[in-house]
């Protein structure tokens, strides 16, 4: 399939007339990914031929020659991985790039000279042959329709020895919570241009995940790593209309989803589990397991959005969304082995569970924003939002056990649960233009809500309430000198005493300052600073959290030397967190301390055909990690529209406390880039 796609894309390039000069040369798309800078990002499809239409005649004149109807580029090649040292499982969890032929990038535009089916079609494909590939098509016929198709296929591999390992300090056993799966998403949207004030649209989204992994089967005194298989898919169908009438915009949308999930866990060999030794004189092995989840769900939602400028000094936006998802559950489990049930203090050799149930969760969201401009220099923005959901679920669980004494035991339970959450937010901001270069902002936000959640079993209650009351003061400043220099500062602080969780924002100060200076077309500087202090002084919590990030960026493209440029981003981050928690076995309060001091560097320099640099992350603290990816790339123009690109990249990750997860790998890619 991949080869066929590759072939189909390449064919038109050779089917054209002899190469003629086209738009400006494009930087490789890979460079755009490695160089997070707009100025260096690969230009999209190069300029189309200039149409000779005047203002009185509608758009571009029909294309006549071959090169008119096709423009774009394609880059394909091969990747070698000569060595992959260290933990291959960690390499796959973090990098996961493989060897073989690849279609690195294809970006092209088709113009239909006859305009019969479409005027213009833009296509973009990236990383086909790699674990993360995407495709997008954007097809337009003027005054008729616009069709966008977006597809993404991402490998989700996660198998880290240090995670969910009962010998976590030693790394002797396997990660018992791992995946080797793929997530695929497809999004299709068709806008129909009716040539009137109303625009209908229909859309379809598909999301699917499937794969294998390892999970745990749990019994009272032991847990067993077992093989698992899972697949789920969600389809969303939606249709709506957008209406624009004299400064009023209204969108109405109706959508629905279907969901299905099938999971299974199985074991057919004697599995000793994580518990080593004997319990009351008996080993606790699992001999067989078959566990199946079959979940089916559906939902519908209704969305309305209104935006209007009823007066010169007023704009209003409001939306309302109502959704009602529902799931039906069937669960079966059959196991054999030697297990212990604490509830009756007896061993049993076989267990069989069957559950059927369903859950409903009506969910309402509404918001209104009003902007008023009573004075020329003053703007007042009022924002109100509410989000309310209520989950009600019930299930019937039938359990059958065969005790080791040979006595069968059965039980049936009606399970019910609820979750009620009401959250609200109201914010008022006033903007005042002190001068035409300086705007100051002040505001106030009140967040409040309540929730009913499942109460701990020991309390004897079914539900327990939780409350949120948070008053937040807001201040901000925007300062700019022309288009060259701007500084933005935001700060907010709160002194609340009711939050949902111990770690929630309670007494906090948050600040963010961002500056950018385009000194000249050759030099650009940017800097960023953010700070969050959060504390909860309750004697049994004593939360003290600080997060600070400082970043700076320099971009340089010498005017006289167009073939050289430099980009350097540096970021320093520090997270310090202290909070008390209770050690379960002793109920003693103990501090949980987390520290991270990180340095991140992203540097890339280009000199003529050579590009070199890479990224680096070094952290110290609770989980010291070093992860760096130096690279060197050679881009040689072979012909007018053909480039040969070769790249070396080194991936290396090392951790001080989990040395068995370190890995290093060299990768070489060579590719051809054809464009016209």
């Amino acid at each position: 399939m991949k080869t066929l796609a590759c072939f189909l894309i390449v064919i038109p390039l050779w089917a054209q007339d002899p190469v003629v000069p086209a738009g400006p040369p494009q930087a490789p798309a890979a460079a755009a990914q490695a160089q997070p800078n707009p100025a260096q990002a690969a230009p999209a499809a190069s300029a189309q031929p200039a149409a000779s239409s005047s203002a009185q005649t509608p758009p571009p004149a029909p294309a006549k020659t071959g090169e008119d109807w096709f423009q774009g580029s394609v880059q394909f090649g091969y990747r070698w991985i000569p060595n992959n040292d260290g933990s291959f499982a960690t390499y796959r969890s973090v990098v996961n790039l493989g060897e073989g032929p690849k279609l690195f990038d294809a970006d092209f535009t088709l113009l239909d000279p006859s305009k019969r089916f479409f005027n213009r079609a833009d296509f973009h494909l990236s990383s086909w042959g790699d674990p993360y590939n995407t495709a997008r098509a954007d097809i337009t016929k003027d005054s008729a329709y616009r069709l966008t198709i977006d597809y993404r296929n991402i490998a989700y591999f996660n198998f880290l020895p240090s995670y969910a390992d009962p010998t976590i300090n030693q790394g002797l056993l396997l990660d018992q919570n791992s995946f080797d799966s793929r997530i695929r998403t497809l999004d299709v949207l068709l806008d129909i241009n009716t040539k009137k004030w109303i625009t209908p649209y229909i859309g379809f989204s598909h999301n699917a995940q499937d794969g294998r992994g390892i999970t745990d089967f749990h019994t009272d005194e032991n847990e067993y790593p077992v093989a698992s298989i899972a697949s789920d898919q969600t389809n969303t169908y939606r249709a709506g209309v957008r209406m624009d009438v004299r400064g009023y915009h209204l969108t109405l949308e109706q959508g629905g989803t279907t969901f299905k999930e099938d999971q299974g866990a199985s074991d057919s060999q004697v599995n000793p589990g994580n518990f080593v030794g004997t319990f009351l004189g008996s080993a606790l092995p699992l001999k067989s397991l078959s566990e199946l989840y079959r979940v089916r769900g559906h939902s519908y939602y209704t969305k309305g959005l209104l935006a209007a400028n009823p007066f010169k000094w007023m704009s209003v936006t409001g939306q309302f969304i109502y959704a009602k998802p529902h799931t039906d559950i069937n669960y079966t489990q059959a196991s054999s082995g030697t297990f212990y049930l604490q509830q009756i203090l007896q061993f049993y050799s076989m267990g069989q569970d069957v559950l059927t149930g369903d859950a409903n969760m009506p969910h309402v969201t509404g918001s209104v924003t009003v902007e008023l401009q009573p004075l020329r220099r003053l703007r007042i923005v009022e924002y109100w939002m509410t989000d309310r959901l209520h989950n009600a679920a019930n299930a019937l669980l039938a359990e059958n056990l065969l005790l080791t004494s040979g006595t069968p035991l059965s039980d049936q339970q009606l399970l019910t649960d609820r979750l009620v959450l009401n959250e609200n937010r109201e914010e008022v901001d006033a903007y005042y233009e002190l001068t035409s270069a300086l705007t100051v902002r002040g505001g106030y936000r009140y967040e409040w809500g309540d929730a009913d959640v499942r109460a701990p079993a020991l309390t004897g209650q079914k539900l327990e309430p939780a409350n949120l009351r948070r008053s937040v003061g807001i201040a901000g400043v925007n300062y700019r000198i022309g288009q060259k220099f701007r500084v933005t500062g935001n700060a907010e602080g709160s002194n609340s005493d009711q939050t949902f969780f111990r770690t929630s924002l309670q007494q906090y100060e948050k600040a963010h300052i961002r500056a950018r200076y385009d000194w000249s077309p050759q030099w650009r500087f940017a800097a960023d600073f953010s700070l969050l202090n959060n504390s909860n002084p309750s004697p049994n919590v004593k939360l003290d959290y600080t997060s600070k990030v400082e970043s700076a960026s320099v971009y340089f493209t010498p005017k006289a030397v167009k073939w050289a440029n430099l980009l350097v981003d540096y970021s320093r981050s520090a997270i310090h967190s202290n909070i008390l928690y209770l050690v379960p076995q002793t109920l003693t309060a103990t501090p949980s301390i987390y520290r991270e001091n990180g340095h991140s560097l992203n540097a890339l320099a280009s000199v003529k055909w050579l590009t070199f640099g890479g990224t680096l992350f070094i952290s110290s603290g609770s989980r010291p990690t070093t992860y760096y990816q130096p690279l060197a790339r050679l881009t040689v123009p072979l012909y007018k529209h053909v480039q040969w690109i070769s790249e070396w990249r080194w991936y290396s990750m090392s951790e001080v406390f989990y040395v068995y997860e370190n890995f290093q790998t060299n990768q070489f890619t060579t590719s051809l880039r054809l464009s016209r």
Partner: protein
Amino acid sequence: MLNKSSRWAWVVAAGIGMLVSSIPILGQQPAQPPDAAKAASPTPPEPAKPADYVGSDTCKACHEEIFNNLQKTPHFDIETGARPSLTGKGWKQRSCESCHGPGSKHADSASPDDIKNPAKEKPGEVDRTCLNCHLNQNTPVGRLATGHAKDEVGCTTCHSIHGEGGAKLVTHNKGEINAKCSSCHISEWAAFNRPYKHRLPEGGMSCVDCHNPHASFRFDTVRTSFGNEPGCLQCHSDKRGPFVYEHPVVRMEGCTACHEPHGSANPRMLIRHEVRLVCLECHANLPIPASLGKNTTVGVVPPAFHNLNSPRYQNCTICHVKTHGSYVDRNFLR
């Protein structure tokens, strides 16, 4: 290192400096109210002789390259009248002047002072020009409440209106989107240098897959999915539920209560280096019987058999495999 009072002194000094440095422009024309007609027609220097519309042909005579670039963008629909909602505003064959205002004076004098140039305007004014037509189309809520609006980041900061140099009005190339966002959001992009992250640097995703830069009613402009659910569930739809047993924190605080989605040095993008600490920092309230009152926050300490000295209990997800919500078990064991 500066002490606290010195830091405040610097902040105050910087504020005064900014105010003083902007005094020379105090006398300039204040911002105009959001008026479609006025936004499109700048105040003429000589009120007695206001500028008139001259049509795009006149503009093209000198600015042919810009006009040709414009033809490749959806904005050319204004010129052709392909969208009646725009034609109704009277912009057909006046696409240039729909944003730049009437151009007769500029056509006569060829002076840049005689024409409105949104690229040199204050962001708020640029936005008003754009929002004359783009009144929140395709966005769940208006951009009034977003960080970009608060920081006065104008539409033209991200969108290349004329499509100069091959730049697209709206790019859909994930690498280009990430490059665009990271040119300002340096710290956020730096987080993607960490080993455990979403696949943005690899080009598998882009910032706008999770964030709606125009607006969202959720914090940090996180997108919505399925109507009003967090955008994370668009890809991780198996976590959507509704479950028979919800894990309340997922609904009440969202995914970021436990995960750092931009990137982390901890596996699974967790916010702590050990899974048990992610859990126990919240699950640390005593189970108080109803007769003795209630906890002020949600989350009780696990029963005493969870002996943390045993490695088996140091990683909660070994047993509690369904931490995002369970269809079967109230303790998320299956």
